[in-house]
């Protein structure tokens, strides 16, 4: 074991949060080492792997390596399989990538902001927690994050989140399907709004505009949708050192309780170290707490509160699908997978008693969650016995042309019994504990689930929709939050409002693991804004931090 690098800042994780911090720091002359557990991804090769995959699930283009295994939706709910050690009572349904660039490779790209009230759940609704910062504190960083990610949106639409600046790009045009739904929604007093999204509508940051590859999940073939490679590549060009296939397993502490660096394991099982003046953990809301709990003594590191790895949250999805009226085809399967939604339920009057939610309108027909028509042909109902020829083709075309899908993202409250801990008794191929997860969805969230499906049904009725189905269980949204929550009280939170550990003064956490509550907005823009805010605080603190050990 040896110290292979030393820098001002070592960043663990190369997803959007780590990438943004790295990019900003190196442009200010701060030396940075980025450690990524997984390998780099070649986009063209990944597209080919996707096309060859039998199940076009979010992970399908990306490797799950022996040294950096990752969860797959194909393993969810199958006892004894997969990367997660699922302890229930319900299966945790969200996944992530362990590759250079992180999960932005397969994210949808939607970038709504949180609402001001999302930051004050305890004060305004008597549930959850308040954030240690306000919407107004974060707003300037939302503006910066929208520029960094390249967000397209309609500044004339009131999304409930006050703006001090316009969107960097004109909105992504909403789909024909959105327009059909909007017409019916208006008859029951609901408005369909275009969804802000990190997807180019014009050339932006040297990236091409969207050309409708209709494949945001699992991979945009041309990079029109933001992914963290933009900032990783720029950070490396500006001097950051990226070490891939480096699985961080411990934060190393000095006797005075400050961090001196991190220890990582290579695919061959050998360990090395990187030392730094400051450590930034950016390894998502599963791996970040796992690293902290594998470090130090039995309680882990930065865990005075005992809440590292607790309060695991998602946006459980209420899914409904149906067919539009026979005389009103909607022609899905074209363009970005979602371009609009219904946002008013995010400000539900019943908040405090049950979950608010936002309705995402899918442009992908009934392909959710598998991503292609495999099931319709291998599990029925196509073709019927003794059905074929042009008649089969026309029936299939007619079906797809009418497919509608609603997915409402529910708000889950922080619950200390929803946990991720290292499974020291179930290790991966290089001897690192896998994530053990306990997870349940409480009545607060399920109250919103019932409301969401009732709203879906009202929409279906307004549309004269046929073959309406409301799925009776929730799906994971891929929005992994909580687990190192921030707050003002070190006794009940892990980090302060800037992501700085209460306990280890030269260690910061970035990412959605910081969220004290999760609101109903897709989390990436908020975690990006928080990361940019952290970078400013970290850089200001650097001169007062101990020098990196050589």
């Amino acid at each position, binding site marked *: 074991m040896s110290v292979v690098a030393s820098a001002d800042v070592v960043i663990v994780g190369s997803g959007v949060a780590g990438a943004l911090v790295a990019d900003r720091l190196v442009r200010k002359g701060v030396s940075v080492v980025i450690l990524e557990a997984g390998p780099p991804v070649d986009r063209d090769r990944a597209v080919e792997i996707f096309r060859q995959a039998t199940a076009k*699930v979010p992970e399908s283009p990306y490797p799950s390596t022996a040294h950096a295994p990752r969860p797959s939706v194909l393993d969810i709910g199958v006892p004894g399989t997969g990367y997660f050690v699922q302890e229930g009572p319900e299966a945790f349904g*969200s996944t992530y990538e362990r590759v250079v660039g992180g999960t932005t490779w*397969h994210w949808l790209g939607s970038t709504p902001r949180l609402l001001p009230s999302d930051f004050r759940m305890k004060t305004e609704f008597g549930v959850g927690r308040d954030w240690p910062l306000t919407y107004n504190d974060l707003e300037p960083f939302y503006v910066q994050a929208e520029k960094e990610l390249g967000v397209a949106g309609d500044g004339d639409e009131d999304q409930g989140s006050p703006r001090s600046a316009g969107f960097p790009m004109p909105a992504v045009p909403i789909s024909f399907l959105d327009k059909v739904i909007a017409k019916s929604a208006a008859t029951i007093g609901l408005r369909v709004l275009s969804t802000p999204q990190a997807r180019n509508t014009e050339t932006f940051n040297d990236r091409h505009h969207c050309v409708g590859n209709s494949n945001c999940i699992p991979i945009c073939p041309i990079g029109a949708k933001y992914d963290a490679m933009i900032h990783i590549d720029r950070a490396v060009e500006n001097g950051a050192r990226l070490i891939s296939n480096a699985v961080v397993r411990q934060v190393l502490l000095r006797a005075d309780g400050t961090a001196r660096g991190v220890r990582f394991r290579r695919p061959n099982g050998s360990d090395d170290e990187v030392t730094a003046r400051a450590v930034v953990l950016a390894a998502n809301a599963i791996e970040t707490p796992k690293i902290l709990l594998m470090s130090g003594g039995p309680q882990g590191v930065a865990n005075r509160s005992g809440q590292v790895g607790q309060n695991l949250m998602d946006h459980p999805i209420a899914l409904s699908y149906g067919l539009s009226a026979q005389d009103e085809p909607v022609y899905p*399967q074209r363009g970005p997978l979602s371009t609009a939604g219904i946002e008013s339920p995010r400000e539900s009057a019943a908040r405090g008693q049950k979950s608010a939610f936002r309705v995402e309108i899918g442009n992908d027909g009934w392909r959710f969650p598998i991503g292609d028509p495999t099931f319709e*042909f291998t599990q029925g109902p196509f073709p019927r016995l003794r059905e074929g020829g042009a008649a089969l*083709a026309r029936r299939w075309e007619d079906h797809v042309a009418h497919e509608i899908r609603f997915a409402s993202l529910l708000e889950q409250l922080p619950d200390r019994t929803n946990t991720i801990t290292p499974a020291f008794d179930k290790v991966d191929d290089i001897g690192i504990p896998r994530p053990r997860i306990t997870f349940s969805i409480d009545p607060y969230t399920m109250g919103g689930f019932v409301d969401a499906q009732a709203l879906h049904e009202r929409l279906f009725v307004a549309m004269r929709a046929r073959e309406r189905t409301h799925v009776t269980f929730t799906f994971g949204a891929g929005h992994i939050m909580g687990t190192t929550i921030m707050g003002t009280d070190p006794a009940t939170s892990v980090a302060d409002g800037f992501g700085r550990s209460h306990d280890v003064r030269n260690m910061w956490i970035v990412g959605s693991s910081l969220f004290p509550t999760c609101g109903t907005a897709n989390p990436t823009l908020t975690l990006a804004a928080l990361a940019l805010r952290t970078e400013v605080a970290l850089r200001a603190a650097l001169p007062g931090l101990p020098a990196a050990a050589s």
Partner: protein
Amino acid sequence: MALHGSALRGLDDRPSHPNRRELLAGLAAGTLTVATSAALASAPASAATTRPVTLDEFMELSRILTDNEFSLEDEPGALYLASLAADPAFSAPLRQLVQDTVRADREPRTFTEVIRSGALRTDAAARTAQQILVLWYSGLVNDRTADYLEALAWESLPFPKPPSTELGFSKWDEAP
């Protein structure tokens, strides 16, 4: 958003499978047949229905079952044929179906004509025809992808393109 569903279990089992180009080359050279039983191997010409189905015959049958609406490629076709021939539920009915259609004196030209000819009167024949269509539409065979971009599930739809291929900005915002 990334998504999961517990209904997806079991899809990642990937049994080994012959390389598709090797398979095509074998069929073309006559070194690989789709007959599966020892009886067939020992008496290959004892009756018309025991004759192995050739790739050309299978492709012709496939075109008939799809009303000649699509351009079907030999490469995935060879994989589909091998799969059917190796499956006891389909191998004999497939030979019979070919006998009753492609090899018939009056060959039906469309799916409807196949129905009228009586070639699908048995459930075994009907299920075999159905499976042929499942293969062409799904592009999946033996838990692997034989064809994605030209799978008929996409090819038969006039308004979208297969995901990962370009539709054009912003053609999604109006009816096609």
